[in-house]
């Protein structure tokens, strides 16, 4: 193993640099060192101008989110040796989807702005406040427990593929917070929240790419919380939009033939009454038909009745 590791670090100081550049440093490699230790080594001994945030160095304060070799991480809990298993050098950039202030420091306003939009506090019954605690069963606590472990580091926003192309998207952290509040057994505003979250930029705009689940340094699994919000919305039968119709008809069509009918699902999702929407899809449909991508007869599996029997049993057990 080499005695030094190369750290290739994104540099940008708005006061002196017209554009960002990468600077390489050689960091003495010792066992058990984290990427943050490496940055501190550079800052203390080689280059006092290198700028980044950090504090607790134990993955609880959420300060040191950065992009390391393409994906967002808390650098305090990332071992250099772990990076070197997959890469020859450690490449560090500021988090994506945020404005860079200097070097690895980004402007987090966007994170807090999105958080602000989801009413990030519990709305409980304020008229009947007990003298002691409000009761909550261990099972109800477990529903919100993992989502409560969010440290607001922002790495999920940094790797969010929907946010990258749609700045309106509320993003994984805010939606996870919304879930934590909506799913709390003590809350009294679940329906209002679910309605609000079904609007543009809400739960139905998640592309389900699992980036946030993969990079979350805690137990939040933000995308899973977004899926649970969808489930809660469907269960409450509150909303009729493309998102809800897509899920409902998907299930229905699978149970219908065992194989998802790809011709009917888009039509049912858009809605037959949405003429503009139907017309909008027509050219693509036509192109597909001409290329033989639209089978005339929909295939089905042999034991469709068995699927329906299973669905019935699942339904009954609820």
């Amino acid at each position, binding site marked *: 193993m080499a005695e030094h590791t190369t750290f290739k670090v994104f540099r940008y100081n708005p006061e002196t640099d017209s554009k960002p550049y990468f600077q390489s440093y050689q960091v003495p490699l010792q066992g058990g060192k984290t990427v943050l230790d490496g940055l501190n080594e550079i800052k203390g001994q080689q280059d*006092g101008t290198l700028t980044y945030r950090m504090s607790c160095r134990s993955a609880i304060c959420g300060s040191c989110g950065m992009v390391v070799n393409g994906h967002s991480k808390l650098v305090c*809990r990332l071992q250099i040796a772990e990076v070197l298993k997959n890469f020859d050098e450690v490449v560090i950039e500021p988090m994506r989807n945020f404005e860079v202030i200097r070097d690895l420091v980004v402007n987090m306003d966007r994170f807090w702005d999105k958080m602000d939009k989801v009413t990030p506090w519990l709305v409980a019954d304020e008229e009947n406040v007990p003298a002691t605690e*409000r009761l909550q069963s261990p099972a109800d606590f477990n529903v919100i427990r993992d989502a409560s472990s969010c*440290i607001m580091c922002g790495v999920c926003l940094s790797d969010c593929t929907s946010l990258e192309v749609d700045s309106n998207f509320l993003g994984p952290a805010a939606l996870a917070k919304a879930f934590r509040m909506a799913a709390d057994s003590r809350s009294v505003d679940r329906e209002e929240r679910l309605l609000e979250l079904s609007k543009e930029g809400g739960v139905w705009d998640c592309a389900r790419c699992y980036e946030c689940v993969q990079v979350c340094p805690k137990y939040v699994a933000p995308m899973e919380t977004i899926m649970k919000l969808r489930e809660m919305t469907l269960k409450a039968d509150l909303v009729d939009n493309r998102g809800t119709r897509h899920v409902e008809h998907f299930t229905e069509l699978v149970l219908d033939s065992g194989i998802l009918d790809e011709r009917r699902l888009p039509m049912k999702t858009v809605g037959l009454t949405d003429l503009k929407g139907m017309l909008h899809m027509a050219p693509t449909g036509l192109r597909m038909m001409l290329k033989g991508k639209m089978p005339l007869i929909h295939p089905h599996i042999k034991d469709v009745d068995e699927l329906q029997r299973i669905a019935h049993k699942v339904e009954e057990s609820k």
Partner: protein
Amino acid sequence: MRVHDVVVVGSGLAGMEAALRASQDGELDVAIVSKVFPTRSHSGAAQGGIACAIGNQDPEDNWEVHMFDTVKGGDYLVDQDAAELMCKKAPEIIYELEHMGLVFNRLPDGRMAQRSFGGHSKPRACFAADWTGHAILHTLFEIVLKRKVKVYSEWYVTSLIVRDHTCHGVVAYDIMRGALEVFKARAVIFCTGGYGRAYKITSNAHANTGDGLSIAYRAGIPLEDMEFVQFHPTGLYGSGILLTEGARGEGAYLLNNDGERFMKKYAPERMELGPRDIVARAEQQEIDEGRGINGKTCVNVDIRHLGKERIMERLPQVRDLAWDFLGLDCFSECIPIQPTAHYSMGGIPVNLDCECVIDDKGTKIDGFYAAGECSCVSVHGANRLGTNSLLEACAMGAIAGTSAAKYAKSAPDLSLPDDADVEAKREIDWLLNARGSVKIADLGDELQRTMMDDCGVFRTEAQLKRQYDVVKNLQQRFQSIGLSDRSKTFNTELLGALELSHLLDFAEVIVLGALNRTESRGGHSRKDHPKRDDANWLKHTLAYKDVDGPRFAYKPVTITRFQPQERKY
């Protein structure tokens, strides 16, 4: 210049509680100034729980038992009126947090669960898995957002404006823009936390440099009981990263190299659940006598017998920390740990209303308050019990907010002194132009290493004298430092230098306070004076800044219900 009625410095539990109380009736303009985003505050790293004698787990528990445990745990240096106040206020605080929306582990009947902790004779720690501090910090922050309290995040307070025993505000540096501004306020509350970064092995964040203490000290305010530094028994070997005492609360064993549960020699009844000072000393003694694991400066904590399910339910972070930082699987392996600098029992002296009181006659600095770890109302005395810190931060933070608000409503509107920010400007200009050859990182490393070696778990006169010379030498070399970053935008090197200058200031107070105190009490353990000496030392230390260094005075301990007796566990 910025003007607010109340300025709270620091955004941890104490700071946010203070701001929420001060702004509660909507009459006052309250602002929080913090060098980090509120959710980055180190309160969030507290793991195991928050003490509160609500008796959910054991109906026999009550505030008086809690108070006794606290007084005994603090080796009778506790001001008992303060401990009584805190323990009585605990249920109100906890229920209020719960009503705000805090998540807590629950009993089957839906009430909050409670676990055992070191030095507490009843299971009274309410908890959220092993991230209790995190849960409270984020809940308070949610209410800060809800209440729209003004927060100046990433503003570094450089000095406190005090003239004629009256506080006029603070001077703060906007890290993002590199601009120095004066904050005029009728009342200022310091909730700036502790200083674990004076030590090499510490559970504390990089931000825990105790700035608030030395800012107050430089403004003419004494520091109380600074020689009492708590070493937490379970810091991860090598880094000192905190491994919750909750692990022992759940039944973890401490083992030496012979696989022996050595606590039976030191606290035969309470075993691993002895108070922190005793357990940390036991570990250090095992290590010093050659029974560290494989000859290294660590012993083992063993949670394997708790089983995977209980670990995942109640100690999930322990598992992650062991894995992430030591590559160990705590389901099947022991975790090497060592005492780690954790908490400052001492700090800015305050009375029961969190008003800063600078002598034994009750002389106040009008408009200046402190709460939480940076303060010393002395609920912890010579040694803090686990889970009492979160309680103190919340309870005393709330009291500070209420008293400061009351004062601010009636305080006269004073004109600011003309020279309010002169010293701060000079300090920053000097640092930005420091072109010497000495590296701040080297000074910091040397301070931390030597404090660990010579002002650590055990101390002797020879060690402390040596350490005093080291600190004086470091202070001198600080005059020859060189900084390379002259930028106004997010200049973290400048901050590092400011923080180091504070560390060097109060390290001297710690060392000299420890040298003076020729007894062993709580977290202060002198090998050359191994016994507690109530006849001479049942008193609080006060250190005042003078031209040549600290000047020491003492004040009596408030004793109400419990007379000092021998401490056994």
